[in-house]
């Protein structure tokens, strides 16, 4: 296992998302990767051999399963079949943990086709809490839930993102899978300071961190006003430096180990460049831990 992010007793870990396109390179560099995240939905209906291959992988390196379609952030109870699919896969693969999104993905039988931010309200928070309880009861084992990026300010919201996430995670005791690029995109798209937004999140609940990249897209022209732009989280670009700055801040503020995962879903650069991003993540973690130690030492004198 790589140890560049080890900092005394603080065993931070850095890894990346398992993608079949990267499989050969991942196997060649297992000594530089602490953990892999596997998209669970790709295996819910997979033949036994494919599931066995992931179990074999999980025996070689820590694996976390990542779900993308439960739709937990809803006033509608999550479908039992979706929970059972995850439970069966967890049982078959024996990962160290699993995760899902705090997202709304369907309504009235209509599939949105992607992860949408629900109205951030007391009702959707309570619905998400109930769904998380159901999921934890059915699937078991440690789980955490991820914030999503949104191009639209979630309609009908009465809470902001940190308030809404805190309400859900405090009530359920669940972990937060904090996607820093999602949080960064939401901040810059809606006029918030990314670091201030980060510090208002329930950082004590953060277990895992996602890093990814995106691209700026132009707003549609409405009138004579020059259109602005918004950041689309697309997982097709390198992690921007402000997101690494957020990771430094996060590592400075939390006093428990973090697992950081790089997500890349296409337009793959050379694997060396992906490994460089993992190195940058380790450096950001180490810098944040150093700053925390310096701060603690200064306070003690």
């Amino acid at each position: 296992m790589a140890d560049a992010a080890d900092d005394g007793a603080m065993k931070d870990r850095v890894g990346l998302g398992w993608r079949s396109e990267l499989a050969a390179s991942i196997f060649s560099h297992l000594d530089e990767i602490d953990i892999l995240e596997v998209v669970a939905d790709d295996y819910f209906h997979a033949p036994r051999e494919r599931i066995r291959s992931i179990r074999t992988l999980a025996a070689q390196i820590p694996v976390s399963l990542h779900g993308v379609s439960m739709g937990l952030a809803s006033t509608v109870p999550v479908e039992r079949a979706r929970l059972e699919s995850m439970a069966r896969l967890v049982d078959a693969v024996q990962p160290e943990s699993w995760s899902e999104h705090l997202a709304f993905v369907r309504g009235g039988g209509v599939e949105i086709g992607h992860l949408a931010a629900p109205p951030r309200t007391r009702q959707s928070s309570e619905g998400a809490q109930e769904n998380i309880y159901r999921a934890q009861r059915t699937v078991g084992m440690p789980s955490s839930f991820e914030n999503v990026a949104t191009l639209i300010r979630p309609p009908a919201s009465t809470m902001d993102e940190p308030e809404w996430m805190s309400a859900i995670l405090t009530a359920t005791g669940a972990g937060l899978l904090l996607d820093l690029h999602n949080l960064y995109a939401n901040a810059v798209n809606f006029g918030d300071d990314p670091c201030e937004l980060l510090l208002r999140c329930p950082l004590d609940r953060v277990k895992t961190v996602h890093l990814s990249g995106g691209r700026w897209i132009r707003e549609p022209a409405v009138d004579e006003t020059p259109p602005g732009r918004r950041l689309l989280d697309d997982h097709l670009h390198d992690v921007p430096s402000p997101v690494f700055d957020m990771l430094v801040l996060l590592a400075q503020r939390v006093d428990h180990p973090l697992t950081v995962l790089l997500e890349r879903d296409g337009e793959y650069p050379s694997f060396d460049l992906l490994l460089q991003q993992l190195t940058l993540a380790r450096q950001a973690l180490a810098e944040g831990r150093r700053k925390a130690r310096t701060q603690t030492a200064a306070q003690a004198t």
Partner: protein
Amino acid sequence: MSSPHFEEFLARLYTDQALLERFLSDPAETCRGFGLNEAECESMRSIDITGLRMAVASFNHKRAAKSSRVHQRPA
């Protein structure tokens, strides 16, 4: 506010181009016609129209990519 019916409205607004066009030309009537209550209709008056158009375009792209079996994993 959130309710299963309101979530259905949003899911349809995000995926049904005809409903989106009706909403953009007459939000209040479209919300009432869908059976949203007064508070829900009122909450939609201040919707982020620019973001709505961009989100719908992004969701359309994701659905098209999925149907053509291109792996575009979520955020």
